[in-house]
């Protein structure tokens, strides 16, 4: 069963961090095609101006939304998943690394702060770089009962 939702605003991206720390993260899709970005600003080196996205430190990313979302009061939400290879996914079944995304408003549009945790597979508890997919939704307001 599926529910059709009208007036749902969404932004979606998939980020590859294989070039960091010397290079920048990049948006990447299947088979290396760099199309997997709808609604997020391009990456710039840290410290980056507000219209860009940036890697703040290992495993911590500020993803700038081109369209302003209203996260207050649960009107918008962010979902993030870790993109693991098959060999990485094995040990993660037992100890999945923490990963979360939180929307913030720093005064110029809105950003999503993504934190990729280390976790037991690589012996770290602090954030560590990892590829991820981020999906942000602005929920529609229901007009009729």
């Amino acid at each position, binding site marked *: 069963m599926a529910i059709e939702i009208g007036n749902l605003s969404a932004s979606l991206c998939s980020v590859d961090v294989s070039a960091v720390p010397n290079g920048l993260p990049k948006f990447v899709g299947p088979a290396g095609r760099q199309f997997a970005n709808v609604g997020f600003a391009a990456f710039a080196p840290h410290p980056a101006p507000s219209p860009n996205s*940036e890697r703040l430190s290992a495993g911590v990313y500020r993803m700038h939304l081109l369209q302003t979302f209203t996260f207050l009061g649960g009107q918008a939400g962010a979902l993030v998943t870790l993109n693991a290879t098959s060999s990485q996914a094995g040990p993660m079944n037992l100890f999945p690394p923490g990963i979360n995304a939180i929307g*913030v408003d720093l005064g110029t549009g809105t950003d999503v*702060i993504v934190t990729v945790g280390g976790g037991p597979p690589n012996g770290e508890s602090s954030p560590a770089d990892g590829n991820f997919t981020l999906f942000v939704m602005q929920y529609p307001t229901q007009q009729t009962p």
Partner: protein
Amino acid sequence: MIGIVCMCFVNPRGDLVGSPRVGVSKVERRGTGGYLLYVRPSAAATVRISALPPGYQARWSVVDRGMKVEVFDQRGYPADHGFALVIEALEAPPTPRRLGGPETHSPATEK
């Protein structure tokens, strides 16, 4: 080895928002464009302030209870605006020791 001493996100009202929050417990407003953060960077630390609009500038200084960040707009006037703060510092690498090797002695403690 670089370590993160402090990382936080401050909105224009002077609230700590989002995550992660490392090394800072409190933020207070200090007039237009001024924010007092309860963290004291060491002299060797690297302070990076980002997420400001193009043309905006941020200055920081150590004050009695922590660190004051002042935000200025394109014309140089104080302006309320949120920012991301990252303070990094060099961490001393652990003393190299070989497993099963002799303990390192300090001349000051030897008799």
